[in-house]
């Protein structure tokens, strides 16, 4: 599973990070770090929840 990060949509809610801090990395201002994220099978559930929690719809799940 891969998560496509639409950085331009991110407004720093940090909901993704609060669900899965080791998958979603935030910069010093609290916005998501650019770059799509490859998720290991073990992490899929957490990553899914994190992506689904983004209020700005900045995280897209690619299966």
């Amino acid at each position, binding site marked *: 599973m891969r998560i496509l990060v639409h950085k331009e949509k991110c407004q720093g809610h940090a909901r993704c990070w609060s669900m899965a801090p080791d998958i979603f990395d935030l910069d010093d201002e*609290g916005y998501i770090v650019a770059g799509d994220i490859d998720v290991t099978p073990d992490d899929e559930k957490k990553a899914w929840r994190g992506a689904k929690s983004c209020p*700005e719809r900045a995280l897209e799940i690619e299966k």
Partner: protein
Amino acid sequence: MTTPTAARPIPAHVPPEMVGEFSLFTAPGMAPTPNGDPQAAAACVHAGPRIFYSPLNTRDGHGTWVITRAKDQRRVLQDGETFSSHRSIFASALGEDWPMIPLELDPPEHGAFRSLLNPLLSPKRVMVLEPAVRERAAFLIDRIARAGTSCDVMNDFAFPFAVNIFLRFLGLPDDQLEEFVGWATDLLHGEPAKRGAAARTIVAFIDDLAAERRREPVDDFMSFIIQAKVKDRPLTDVEVRGIGVLLFIAGLDTVAAAIGFDLAYLARNIADQRLLRNEPSRIVLAAEELLRAYPTVQMIRVATRDIDFEGAPIRKGDYVSCATMIANRDPEEFECPEKIDLSREDNRHQAFAYGPHRCLGSHLARREIVIGLEEWLKRIPDFRIKEGTAPIAYGGHVFGIEDLILDWS
């Protein structure tokens, strides 16, 4: 809340059939009401159209368009070019004209200030403030527990807690707490004359603090601001003031009201109260659901050009209201929005707004609420609304609770 002044005439471009009865100030359940539930009362708009015109929907009697669906509110809040935040609410109450920063600036100017302030309230930074938040909560609740088996949550805990965290954030000593609580109470809940005086006191306080830190910087928030640069130049006095005043007012009433609504809910729903007390790890998720169900802020934007929006002829200068309490009870967005389910997972609520103005203090606010509930439930046994009392809740620009007398005898 004060009642709004007389309504202005409805502009000619608003089609009569698009005028609605509902307003966050005058609809049933919005005036201060014993045992009121203003958020539930506001949800009635979902039976109606996506957008309508409410003739009296601000404190000073302005009409606004009301956007009822969360999806449409997102469109408005993400488009600062068409829907501007520039209003100078605070300053205009003083007969002046300067923006609260970053609240009343639009992109791209907004972004420069936002970048400056973001690191100060980022999730990682808030983790550093957390021990102080917990210590303050414990201090206040211990005092309440020692004093008896009943208290007014708003006066004894929620409000002083929020003010105290703000003092800590500014790096000011706790002994100014009483004084600050007094100013904040007058500003947010006082009669018009008291409000004006409190506003002037707060502006003077912020100006003095900035001047003092310019003379002798220390390691605190205000010293950081006066030494900071935006667009390669230092901030002007008016910008420093705009930031300081906003931070003062943004995080007091909002946090206090959230804690009040949450404890009122738990007092009335003893099974949920016990669930959270016995399994405190559920509080983080529960706090999100309570933020969804009991959000407090109505956002207003001003149209910068004519635009037809979902069939409504919005004209340049019109006010557009995006009320978080309305978005958060949108059945197109949430399954059974009227049901409060403390383990709701799919919960992209908008208590802290969307788009570039997303609440800068949201990470701190969330921790204040969660820690407040954790420490409260740890120290106070089964509590209820005190018999013979009825907490007064109200709608308006910022929803809240006047008093909340709890009893655990």
